[in-house]
């Protein structure tokens, strides 16, 4: 399978500064848009932008496992739930803890951590669980992993509902401090993208891709299939746990229902739309699905098209999104980007522009 790493470059090899410029351009663009939204837009647009950032982390970290190893996990929202609950319990102010969670064991009832340590512990808790279930589950392959991880999601939900002293059971967990800001979210989004990018180019990443393409061949040249999958699973669970913690401190009131099939499928949709195995595809998938569903949702209350008045059609946005999804599965099964990356490096290579303009002259 062709990917951007091995594709021969027709123009001269880009120099180091050109590479940096290629990476810095989208980041700068992102920073500018975020600054603009913080400064000039309504609270609603700011909300959507934060939700988008959270989804970018979720999709990119899911991609780190599903896309790089080719094994499909349906259970990642379980890690998100672990991150959200762990971080929320650790940061809940003591007086609220006494009211909301009266049955907490003493060692938990008297601690209140800051946001950053709570996020890290949330992520680490998810990793620990991932490593524990990873050994048996990741030996499986194909659909069996999907089924096993789905079972994991169900187990997480049942545990959350029954661990009443810690989670309030099925009742809404509220009072989570509102720590998450746009900078926390996009800071972690950058970390996630950077980590995914580094992993992809590390020996472990190469091993992941190798066993994805051909397990037997990879094994025959000494790639340890289980170990490479475990690495991907652990890192991806950590980042998903972090996203869950950020999500919890943004949404503030949630119950186990929030971390179930609906959320699972919404993240998988973004992943599949963007293209599995592509980091920039994850980002684009999240942007496309989040923004499009918001735009469609705003139109379903009814609007006027010049002379034609469109009546309110609630639920239309879900139907249109589903049609779009089916369309992508039919016409671009590999997603918008497939396994490729958007590489802006060439924009800074003089030869590239020359070739562009020369083509136009013909």
């Amino acid at each position: 399978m062709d990917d951007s790493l091995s594709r021969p470059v027709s123009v001269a090899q880009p120099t180091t500064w050109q590479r940096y410029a290629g990476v810095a351009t989208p980041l700068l663009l992102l920073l500018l848009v975020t600054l603009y939204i913080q400064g000039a837009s309504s609270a609603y647009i700011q909300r959507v932008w934060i939700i988008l950032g959270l989804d970018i982390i979720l999709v990119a970290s899911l991609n780190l496992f599903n896309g790089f190893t080719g094994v499909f996990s349906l259970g990642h929202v379980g890690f998100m739930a672990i991150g959200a609950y762990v971080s929320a319990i650790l940061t809940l102010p003591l007086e609220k803890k006494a009211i909301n969670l009266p049955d907490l064991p003493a060692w938990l009832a008297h601690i209140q951590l800051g946001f950053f340590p709570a996020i890290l512990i949330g992520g680490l808790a998810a990793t620990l669980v991932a490593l524990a279930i990873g050994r048996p589950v990741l030996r499986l392959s194909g659909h069996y992993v999907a089924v096993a991880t789905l079972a994991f999601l169900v187990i997480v939900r049942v545990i959350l509902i029954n661990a009443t002293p810690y989670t309030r059971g099925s009742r809404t967990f509220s009072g989570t401090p509102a720590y998450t800001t746009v900078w926390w979210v996009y800071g972690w989004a950058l970390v996630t993208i950077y980590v995914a990018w580094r992993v992809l180019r590390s020996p472990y990443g190469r091993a992941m891709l190798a066993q994805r393409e051909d397990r037997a061949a990879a094994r025959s040249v000494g790639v340890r299939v289980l170990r490479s999958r475990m690495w991907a699973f652990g890192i991806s669970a950590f980042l998903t746990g972090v996203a869950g913690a950020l999500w919890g401190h943004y949404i503030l009131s949630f119950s186990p229902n929030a971390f179930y099939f609906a959320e699972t499928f919404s993240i998988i949709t973004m992943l599949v739309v963007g293209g599995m195995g592509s980091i920039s595809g994850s980002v684009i998938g999240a942007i496309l699905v989040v923004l499009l569903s918001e735009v469609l949702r705003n139109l379903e209350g009814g609007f006027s098209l010049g002379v034609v008045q469109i009546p309110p059609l609630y639920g239309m946005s879900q139907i249109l999104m589903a049609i779009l999804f089916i369309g992508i599965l039919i016409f671009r099964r590999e997603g918008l980007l497939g396994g490729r990356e958007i590489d802006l490096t060439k924009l800074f290579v003089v030869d590239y522009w020359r070739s562009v303009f020369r083509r136009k002259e013909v």
Partner: protein
Amino acid sequence: MKRIGSLLSLALVIALLVSGCTAPAPSSTGGGEAASAPAETIKIGGAFNLTGELSSLDVPAANGAKLALAEINAAGGVDGKQVELIIRDGKTDPATVANITTQLIDSDKVVAMIGFTDSDSALAAGPLCQEAGIPFITAGATSPKLPSQVGDMMFLTPFGDNVQAAVGAEFAYDRFGPKAYLLWDKGTEYTTLLADYFKTRFTELGGEIVLEDTYQSGDKDFSAQIAKAKSLGEQPDFYYISAVPDDIGTTVKQFREAGITGPIVGGDGYDTPLLVEVAGDAANNVFFTTHALMDADNGSEAVKSFIEAYRTEYGHDPENAFAALGYDTMKLIVDAIQRAGSTDGAAIAKAIEETQGFPGVAGELNYSASEHVPRKGVTMIEVKDGKFTLAAEMVPEKVPAP
């Protein structure tokens, strides 16, 4: 070429984002007809889960609110100003619920907000309203803890679950006896709280819970629970089952098919046409507490005229009592704005607190500064020959602490 395609799609997204920012807010001034609103209107936010799991409760509530709006505007609005209800769909998704609340407050500039029938959504929306200083009345969430969790801008139109559970316990204790079987759905806050409050009040009365059992929302098979109940040496006097609307028909049917004929008692989750549709004859000898008997023949005068108006507007009877609650909520908020003589959030909240004897379709509403959950009566319904009939109108003697 493919790269150009992806860049094009990116451009499309940006174009959509820009158009999204300027998309007109959906609005409704009554039964959905196009509105040419006068220059100055009083805007009220209507946040409902019109799609998703909760739509069977939220759609009737939203319809009730729209009906009330049409009546208010036909009668001249508030001080000559028309009232506008801006309805947005929360899609039974916490992130979307928060999004639409922010939109209503920030983009639509509503002066007050109504909506939702579940505490998850009310808890997602409430704090945003509280922060903005905008009163929020939930049309159907019955958790009595909501005002203490959210703050002084949060109000309920329905009674609290502690009140209806107390009525259920007192009624069943007097009528059926002191031995109860208790089954609840662990999957939702509503069913868990309702069972807790029932147990508190029932044991306080001197009753005994002979067997407690649980299940999960969406379980379709109750044979394990039924086998346990049947293995009891002596059957209890009645069965209290705390369930959500989607499950209750199946539950009742399976209990009856297994030969359990005793009275089954429950809360307002039973108030759905599904109960009789799914369970059929098995639904007889079922009792439940709810907001009002939505019956065109046996209901109160207020209920009868409400059903009549609802039929005219939508072409069918109200689906359940949440239609009446949505209607009451809209009437209450507009009445409060009128009495406050201002659209200032704090003034409206104060006017709601001063509400006494407000005649709602689903019971009279009374509030005070310390009671943001209204003091109101509870309707006990008995299913007889496949029809909902009035068993009692009660105010509980004692209510468990929220």
